[in-house]
């Protein structure tokens, strides 16, 4: 994964928000940290949902703690989400098929909302039996993928993540770290893979969007330069924007040369 990131486009396409950041690894780190915190936050919130309904049982003394959850769950989720969020754009690049479908923050937000909604449904809606619940959630997850992703790589990765995560959870529960109130799929609930799949798709979506934002030049840069150049007397004359940019670039180059 690390090599994939280093092959990213050169610094000239760097985004504006981190214009001081030159190295790609720092860029990678920032994205990772952002994804990590998103993952931690979502884990906390969604866990709260589950705990309300007594779906998962943690030892009672831990419930008394401030986050009403075991301390290790959010960091684990955060790490996983960071890995997933970085993995998705990386795989896109390796496959050479950049993800073009609905690349907007509003779409990402919608995706996150649907993901939270799936969790909500899994925790709060009363189903007749577990098979029905699992089937419904599976359909919802596939719908999520179809609505917001539609890439083969995304689907494959999502399935892989779901499989791995379910395996890990089985192991954890088997070893008695925590337990589910009514396991119906070996030791866990049968809807767990669906949730993991949807989570993988969602984090991948966020990661892709972040990667796109960090690697493309946005309007912000232009605007800021123009703001700086507004001191320039010709700001008001026509074509000022371009002139400003040219002037600035020229200055930058001169400064670089003199150094």
């Amino acid at each position, binding site marked *: 994964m690390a090599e994939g990131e280093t092959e990213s486009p050169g610094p000239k396409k760097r985004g504006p928000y981190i214009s001081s950041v030159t190295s790609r690894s720092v860029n990678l780190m920032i994205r990772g940290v952002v994804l990590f915190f998103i993952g931690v936050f979502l884990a906390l919130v969604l866990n709260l949902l589950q705990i309300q309904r007594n779906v998962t049982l943690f030892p009672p003394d831990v419930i008394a703690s401030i986050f009403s959850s075991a301390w290790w769950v959010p960091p684990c989720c955060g790490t996983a989400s960071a890995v997933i969020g970085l993995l998705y754009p990386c795989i896109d690049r390796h496959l050479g098929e950049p993800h073009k479908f609905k690349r907007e923050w509003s779409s990402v937000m919608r995706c996150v909302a649907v993901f939270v909604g799936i969790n909500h449904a899994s925790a709060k809606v009363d189903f007749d039996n577990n098979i029905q619940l699992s089937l419904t959630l599976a359909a919802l997850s596939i719908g999520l993928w179809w609505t917001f992703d539609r890439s083969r790589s995304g689907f494959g990765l999502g399935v892989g993540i779901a499989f791995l995560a379910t395996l890990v959870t089985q192991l954890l529960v088997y070893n008695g770290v925590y337990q589910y109130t*009514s396991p119906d799929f070996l030791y866990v609930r049968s809807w767990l893979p669906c949730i993991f799949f949807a989570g993988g798709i969602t984090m991948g979506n966020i990661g892709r969007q972040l990667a796109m934002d960090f690697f493309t030049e946005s309007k912000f840069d232009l605007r800021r330069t123009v703001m700086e150049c507004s001191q320039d007397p010709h700001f008001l004359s026509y074509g000022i924007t371009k002139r400003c940019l040219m002037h600035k670039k020229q200055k930058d180059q001169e400064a670089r040369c003199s150094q």
Partner: protein
Amino acid sequence: MTLTERLREKISQAFYNHGLLCASYPIPIILFTALCILACCCPLLKLPLPGTGPVEFTTPVKDYSPPPVAPDRKPGEPSERPEWYVGAPVAYIQQIFVKSSVSPWHKNLLAVDVFRSPLSRAFQLVEEVRNHVLRDSSGTRGLEEVCLQVTDLLPGLRKLRNLLPEHGCLLLSPGNFWQNDRERFHADPDIIGTIHQHEPKTLQTSATLKDLLFGVPGKYSGVSLYARRRMVSYTITLVFQRYHAKFLGSLRARLMLLHPSPNCSLRAESLVHVHFKEEIGIAELIPLVTTYIILFAYIYFSTRKIDMVKSKWGLALAAVVTVLSSLLMSVGLCTLFGLTPTLNGGEIFPYLVVVIGLENVLVLTKSVVSTPVDLEVKLRIAQGLSSESWSIMKNMATELGIILIGYFTLVPAIQEFCLFAVVGLVSDFFLQMLFFTTVLSIDIRRMELADLNKRLPSEACLPPAKPVGRPARFERQLAVRPSTPHTITLQPSSFRNLRLPKRLRVIYFLARTRLAQRLIMAGTVVWIGILVYTDPAGLRTYLAAQLPENQTLPGEPPEPGSPAEGAHDSPVPEVTWGPEDEELWRKLSFRHWPTLFSYYNITLAKRVVRYISLLPVIPVTLRLNPREALEGRHPQDGRNAWPPRRPGPGGLWEAGPRALGVAPAHGDVTLYKVAALGLAAGMVLVLLLLCLYRVLCPRNYGQPGGGPGRRRRGELPCDDYGYAPPETEIAPLVLRGHLMDIECLASDGMLLVSCCLAGHVCVWDAQTGDCLTRIPRPGQRRDSGVGSVFEAQESWERLSDSGKGGPEEPGDSPPLRHRPRGPPPPALFGDQPDLTCLIDTNFSSQPRLSEPTQPEPRHRAGCSRARDGPGYDFSRLVQRVYQDDGLVPGRPPALRPSSPGPGPPPLTPEDEGGCPPEKGSPCLAWVPSADGSIWSLELQGSLIVVGRSSGRLEVWDAIEGTLRCSSEEVTSGITALVFLDKRIVAARLNGSLDFFSLETRTALSPLQFRGTPGRSSSPASPVYSSSDTVACRLTHTVPCAHQKPITALKAAAGRLVTGSQDHTLRVFRLEDSCCLFTLQGHSGAITAVYIDQTMVLASGGQDGAICLWDVLTGSRVSHMFAHRGDVTSLTCTTSCVISSGLDDLISIWDRSTGIKLYSIQQDLGCGASLGVISDNLLVTGGQGCVSFWDLNYGDLLQTVYLGKNSEAQPTRQILVLDNAAIVCNFGSELSLVYVPSVLEKLD
């Protein structure tokens, strides 16, 4: 396939028509939509506030026992019971519901009698309840043992002390008003006053004392002098601590025995447990808040994409309103059809919004905005709608399909969600189509309103001008001047009133749209509808007759004892017990019970699960004789008594309770029925709309089915009066050659100089559009400075030699002969390979087309060239250009651009157009240099003055492209230049002002070229010969003319005006550079200055203000607030001031009074492009077009399209040349437009 296509076409057509409709009648449609929303949201008023509403759980009375304290729920079992249903309740509440009436009713009875004696029976009942004792095997049990013992009231409720029980059983009855003392009651002259004395004056949601004691909502109690139904109801409320089935059963049996309710159909089977949740736990709040945050982020990111509209915020708000009100409508409709939402509204709301989404709205906006700007608003809306129709319908169908699949999961919660979502989607579609589209049309109309207002009324229509340019590609016919420039003839001004009066416009509007007719039609339809709805004879009575029948069928046999008792009191309201009485407490405020318990410091709402159980009511019917009523009467009652209302026909009274009974009949409607009803309602809505549409739009709008294609020529933009200004398309001369955007333009009428961002300067013949010279960045030339003519000449020779490599046309001008000079320095231009195309020396290739017509000037040029020997005399050529241009409009070009490099053949007239950029491009790539970019440019005669960012001032020869002299004493960038006669004034970034004078001296021999230039004695001539040496001498410097950079510089009438960022203007005298005035009055940096020969000075600043000054006295004449944002350009005619601002408005002001005459809305990015052709002709730029305006009247005269529509670019800048040609700047290329030559007035 064809079916899909046809469907698609149909949908597109329908949307197109719909768009036309929406844009045509925005206000009525918005009103209609608002009414729809309100109507659909009406049922919502009945719903309790979300979140804090009580939660109910019903268990059967039979075999009831309180639930165990510890939940014994097995892990796998899905829970049936709510989680709060644990342990014993706080209290059991038993209501004894008393209905009583006086029967038969006598005429001599008073209104007070309706409730006086029934209320007095309450005391008796309370006694009976209190004294009831259950005797069985386990001993005797009285009320005291099972009831809830209360202690003190809260300290703050002292005044209620006498009314509410303390230290004993909690037993409430109306008798508490009189301390349960019958004597007090009988002594009370004003019962109603007593009851209402504790009523709060203000509106309050919590229960009042009257409600608490009566136990029924106020309007049901019947204790009122104006009650129509002479029946009094109240309850005696008992609160038990423990559930003792036998005691309750015996109490019920005894009361029923004492006061039988013969026609009672109450079933008394279920126990309702109510849980009041008031505090929302933080654990529940966090996910909720998270979902809302995500929702807001979604809305933010979505609405951020709305662009290119007048008011972004307005549209974003409209989008959000659309989604929200569609949700409200959905909930309202579902409630209307009997589905009470059981889901927590606050929780599912964000998901509903996300499912419904803002996407369609955004897609619509984008599509509408991307239609051609110059179209009429209606057409834009219609085209935008129809181009997106298919995708919208497809999306909608997909979403509906998905939701329907979800509906068949058979999980009640999901089904309910899906139901809401379906209805929400349908209503969202409805709102999008009606509400949002209309708002969008209003917004876009606002954007173009200024434009529309300026158009002529139809009777002042101009004769349509003939389009002149052939539609062939304009590049091909470049060399040919438009031979027949078309003329716009203006009507005599008597016909063209300034503006039609407003009332006339209204009348015209009414007449054209046949508004009155349509209103009458619509009114008729509505009237018929109302008639049908309220039809007394037919439908309604039939329905009314049907419904009760249906209702009574499944119920118990109604009124078994009525025949017996109905005999003697037939005109009296019968005491009936319907299902609505069973749950009368539901009609109480939902704070009723919490309020009651809170008086005794018992809270019902807590995180620790607490609830109360409501036992089935015990019905008690009291029938009183008139005699009893008369006995109970207070002596004062007779005096202030009112006669009771005459009882109306009995049917009316019957209708009341029966109608009430209809509503719960829908209570058991299943979800499927509700879904069917909802869908049916949606379909009815659509049909209704269709009908409305048919009614409103019987006429077909001229253009059928405008697909997503580009605008057709036939659709002229026209205004409200159907007037479309003539629109023509002419082929402009396109001047290409710049690689980057053109920054500066200067012209003196004959020549046109442009400079692009890359630093290239091109000199064009303003008549023919030929590229005469290109000046590369001089930093790469070795020779710079004075005395470069020699080397330049060499380069010229070399270039001309290479240029001659191509075949020449036979019989053309004689080849140039130069004396041999040996090999030219090879390294001279080694690093500048594109110079070949930059300096135009090959005059031998001539356009074929112009050749036969006018060979004369060229011939003379050739002769003179031959005569002049080594130094080619450009000045003559240029002079002749000047002479000829002034006289002969259709003259062929004297100078042709050469073919760049040796390779290509000489240009034919077809493929010229300046130096083809693709040929020069490899070498023209912009290279940064220390020289700085060109910031200002001036042209006079054949000299170009260039001011650079590095502070270097350069004087170039326009024809030869050689540097004549330069000056770089100061390093501060030259921001503005004035070149007047022989004087150059340069304004600099540091606020200083340099005055230069140009000195020329005729060169006698090449040897003198390198000598220092002496003082010139030759007379000043606007044309500098190439053999003259030109020196530019710094005569004067005003070191600190301004504190901040000088932004504007203009000179006229011997005065020089500078405007600066330090908010001041300064006036200098040109001769001695003496500062005359400092003008203060702006509150922002000066951005534009205008001065003319009449000494009128106008200035505009960043504050959006325009000031007019008198230069003679230095006083301010007027001050106008012109623009929101900076004033970008400013010019004056004899009667008006024309300004443009960053707000893309062009405003025209009266020069003498400073009153705004009107303003013109420009296309985005074309704000500053304006030019004045004559005193009454204004030209403005637009999207790929230029428009001509009559300045005096503000009428749009003509719009000229430059070339094809698809490549429409905004006009950035307009420069009007003397010979009525306009130079428009479209980014990297210039267009030379010959104004339909002169727009002259006939009168």
